């Protein structure tokens, strides 16, 4: 393009003419803008100033209602109740101290409490609403509301608060909610705005924590016009909050409550499970605690009483307690031997009360010995010597593999915190852990559930359910989410020979239903509901030769050195429905302490209500009549006492 620019007088003048026209049009537009500006900023200024000053638009977070939790029959276990509270907006209060002092003249508010409030308010911005007093009585609430004009920055409002009507019964499974702490915030990479909003209560333990994301719901936004003092003039629009998800548990409140009641006074745990579906019907851990105490702001006294208690009320023993399973593990040893083909079920092994392996003497629990025992005799009498003998034929690796197939050494897939995986030891494990060689004595101990072997009551219940059903059932505690049933697939087969399983189950039947079986005294006397079980008594501490010689009476041993009492069982024997495990810490004897409790809970599960007296052996009738008469009425939906000012 080498052509020079066109440039002529005519052309320039034409462009100039057009430019003039264009400039004129642009001038008109600018004039319109200026006129509009004047109209808005001068003529209508006072109206807009009013709008700006008096009708400020605010976005308010609408906190969703927390999802409810029900038992399998729709009984509410966690609900939301109205909570009368006082909130404060620092920037409107002026001097916070003065306002609190005025407030203290209306309601009881000690000086140290006021200092706490001032400290806690620092965490929130000056324009944020911070709850300063929760759970007011209606009288106090009304009094403060009436005096609100004299209290700048103080607003009374009604919120929703968590309430656990069943109190101690679900303290571990459901857990509790409480104010958000720094530690809670650190758990979230990007905390939801709900969590950051003042007054939000976050799940601290149990399902409340583990299913917190589902339960808490989704916050909504309300856009409102407020006047200069913050009063809402009108709502401009809203996105409603989305209520948290409701959970329906597999737990049966009647059974859970009964189990808690039956274990009361002991440091103990019990789990009842459907052997086919894995649905946990009850998981009781005693002592419990009142989760409501945590929501209301726990008192130092109550807190100390919980952490100083030797029975550890805060621990969920069903899933976090790892106990030596004692003789309850013998079914696994027996099955391992049968599956490996190293023992004939009819082969009789002689029990003289001890065996000598290497240079050590391993004792049977029965000093005098059991005499000649076959496989089911060994289970019925819980003969240790029988297992000392067959375990040497199997070897620890095969035993560990079998234990793992029954759920040992792995955390059960439950949405709960602090699950223990228990322990199914083998040579490699011991080497990794202690850098020591495996010894034959370790195998002998493992065969009778002592030494390194550990399992939680939940794992013992899973083991029993798998024995009873022959299927690899997994426990579950959530049945429905927002009314939609959780899918439940039929558990895969354990791939064990039916003959071997039947033999072990027969052994368990003989434990509970034959004279001199270790749990015969705690049998179910109704043939169609007969229970098959296994007792276990686990040493907490190795018995020294002197102690054996002294043969101390158990009652004289300090509580924490007494043996744990265990029982596992399933019923009905012919058509198994429920598996149960009971562990009573330091309960001395499985047959004496754990088996009767297991029988009572199992009967409750089978009948769904108080069982008829005929279900018990005749010799126990007078005792059972008394026990049943003393049973308190079921714990149903206790309404909270009006929270008074006695709370610190």
């Amino acid at each position, binding site marked *: 393009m080498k052509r020079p620019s066109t440039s002529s007088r005519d052309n320039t003048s034409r462009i100039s003419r*057009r*430019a003039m026209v264009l400039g004129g049009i*642009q001038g008109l537009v*600018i004039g319109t*803008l200026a006129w509009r500006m004047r109209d808005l*900023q001068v003529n209508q200024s006072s109206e807009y100033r009013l709008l*700006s000053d008096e009708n400020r638009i605010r976005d308010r977070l609408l906190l969703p209602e927390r999802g409810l939790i029900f038992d399998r029959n729709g009984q509410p276990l966690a609900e939301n109740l109205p909570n009368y509270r006082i909130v404060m907006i620092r920037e409107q209060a002026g001097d916070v101290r003065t306002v609190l002092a005025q407030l203290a003249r209306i309601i009881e508010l000690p000086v140290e409490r006021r200092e706490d409030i001032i400290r806690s308010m620092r965490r929130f911005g000056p324009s944020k609403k911070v709850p300063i007093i929760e759970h007011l009585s209606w009288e106090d609430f009304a009094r403060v509301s009436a005096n609100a004009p004299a209290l700048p920055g103080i607003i009374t409002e009604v919120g929703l608060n968590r309430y656990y009507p069943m109190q101690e019964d679900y303290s571990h499974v459901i857990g509790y909610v409480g104010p958000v702490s720094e530690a809670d915030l650190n758990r979230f990479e990007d905390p939801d705005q709900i969590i950051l909003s003042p007054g939000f209560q976050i799940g601290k333990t149990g399902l409340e924590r583990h299913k917190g994301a589902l339960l808490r719901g989704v916050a909504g936004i309300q856009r409102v016009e407020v006047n200069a003092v913050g009063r809402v003039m009108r709502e401009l629009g809203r996105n409603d909050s989305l209520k948290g998800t409701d959970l329906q548990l597999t737990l049966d409140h009647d059974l859970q409550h009964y189990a808690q009641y039956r274990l009361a006074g002991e440091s103990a745990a019990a789990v009842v499970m459907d052997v086919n579906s894995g649905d946990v019907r009850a998981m009781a851990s005693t002592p419990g605690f009142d989760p409501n105490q945590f929501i209301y702001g726990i008192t130092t006294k109550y807190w100390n009483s919980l952490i100083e208690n030797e029975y550890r009320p805060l621990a969920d023993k069903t899933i976090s307690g790892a106990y030596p399973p004692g003789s309850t593990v013998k079914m696994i040893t027996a099955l391992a031997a049968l599956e490996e083909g190293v023992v004939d079920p009819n082969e009789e092994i002689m029990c003289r009360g001890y065996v000598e392996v290497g240079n050590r003497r391993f004792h049977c629990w029965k000093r005098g010995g059991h005499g000649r025992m076959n496989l089911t005799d060994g289970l019925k009498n819980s003969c240790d010597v029988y297992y000392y003998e067959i375990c040497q034929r199997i070897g620890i690796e095969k035993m560990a593999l079998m234990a793992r197939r029954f759920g040992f050494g792995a955390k059960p897939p439950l949405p709960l915190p602090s699950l223990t995986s228990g322990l199914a030891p083998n040579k490699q494990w011991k080497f990794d852990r202690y850098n020591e060689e495996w010894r034959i004595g370790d195998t002998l101990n493992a065969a009778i559930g002592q030494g390194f072997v550990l399992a939680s009551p939940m794992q013992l219940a899973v083991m029993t359910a798998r024995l009873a059903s022959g299927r690899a059932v997994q426990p579950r505690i959530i049945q429905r989410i927002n009314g939609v049933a959780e899918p439940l697939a039929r558990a895969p087969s354990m791939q064990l020979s039916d003959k071997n399983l039947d033999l072990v189950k027969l052994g368990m039947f003989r434990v509970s239903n034959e004279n001199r079986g270790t749990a015969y005294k705690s049998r179910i006397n109704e043939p169609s509901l007969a229970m098959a079980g296994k007792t276990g008594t686990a040493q907490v501490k190795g018995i020294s030769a002197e102690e054996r010689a002294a043969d101390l009476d158990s009652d004289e041993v300090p509580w924490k050195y007494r043996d744990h009492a265990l029982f596992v069982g399933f019923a009905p024997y012919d058509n198994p429905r429920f598996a149960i495990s009971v562990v009573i810490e330091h309960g001395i004897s499985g047959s004496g302490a754990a088996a009767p409790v297991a029988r009572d809970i199992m009967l409750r599960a089978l009948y769904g209500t108080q069982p008829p007296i005929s279900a018990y052996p005749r010799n126990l009738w007078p005792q059972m009549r008394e026990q049943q008469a003393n049973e308190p009425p079921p714990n149903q939906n206790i309404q909270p006492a009006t929270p008074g000012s006695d709370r610190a």
Partner: protein
Amino acid sequence: MSFLDPTLNQTPRGWRKVFYINWPLVLLIIAVACFGFLMLYSVAGGDISRWAQPQITRFSVGMVIMFMVAFTPISFWRQVSLLAYFGGLVLLLIVLFFGSVGMGAQRWIDLKFIQLQPSELMKIALVMALALYYDWLPPEKVSHFGFVLIPLAMISLPAMMVVVQPDLGTAILLVASGGVVMFLAGVSYWYFIAAISAVVGAVTAVFMSRGASWQLLNNYQYKRIDVFLDPSLDPLGDGYHITQSKIALGSGGLSGRGFMQGPQSQLSFLPEKQTDFIFTTLAEEFGYIGSTFLLILYTLIMIFAISAAMKNKSRFGALLIGGIAATFFFYFALNMAMVMGLAPVVGVPLPLVSYGGSAMLVLLGGFGLIQSAHVHRPK
């Protein structure tokens, strides 16, 4: 090389070009930009590093670019006009297929050191190409139908590519500034009357068709129009923006609420307060006096630019100056009309004031072209 073009021999060479720069225009630009820095400092709540500091840096870079462009002979820019136009088209194609999505639209090419927005470049390139076209076309032929179709195609091609991004605001700017170049070039008034009648007819048809069997737009699009006409219908969406921005403007009053004292701006009621809606902050804090002052500065820029165009005897130079000045005009006029509720919210920044790099650099480059045409104008 047209550096040796005889007509250019009389134009200044080397450093002496400095004396031929249109200095009032430069000073006006700096004044407007300083207004912008103040407002960015204010909307950040007194934090200079948030928006003001990067904006000052960008403006300085932009000024350097402006002078570099200004010192380069206009004949060079004339030579690269077509290249710029087709390069712009290619970039628009690239952005359509590979661009990053930001704010719900595909507009950016991420070059790591800068986010290139080809539609911004296109605003200048289109004006350059059209000026070149009319420079080449003998003036007596400008109103021939065939020669009107060519520039129409040149305008609508990039405009359509921008509309699908979707960026309606930029598309309108492209069409409008292209139309201005055609207008300045002397295309017959009848074409413009016909075009305006067509637009009015189309708008009428759109309204008439509502609810009829031949409805032209979707219902949600009608809803948007309703909200534009009556913002209170949708106080949470677009209407919310307009309502809030009108409250901010109106409550500023004659003298404003004072620097950094505007409750609407400071309390974050305003959307996009550092970009498209920054004028509301200015109007709220400096009142009618402040906003009129800015409008006067803009008007002065227009007056100096248009008179520069009228003084320029080169057809290319005059059209280029006029076209770029018109682009600048549409920027501020559309933006102000939008925040005052006179035009729908289309997303056009306030030139030299709103926070943002791409638009500012391109605008300053455009002013560089104006200066180049002015410095190197034939005597």
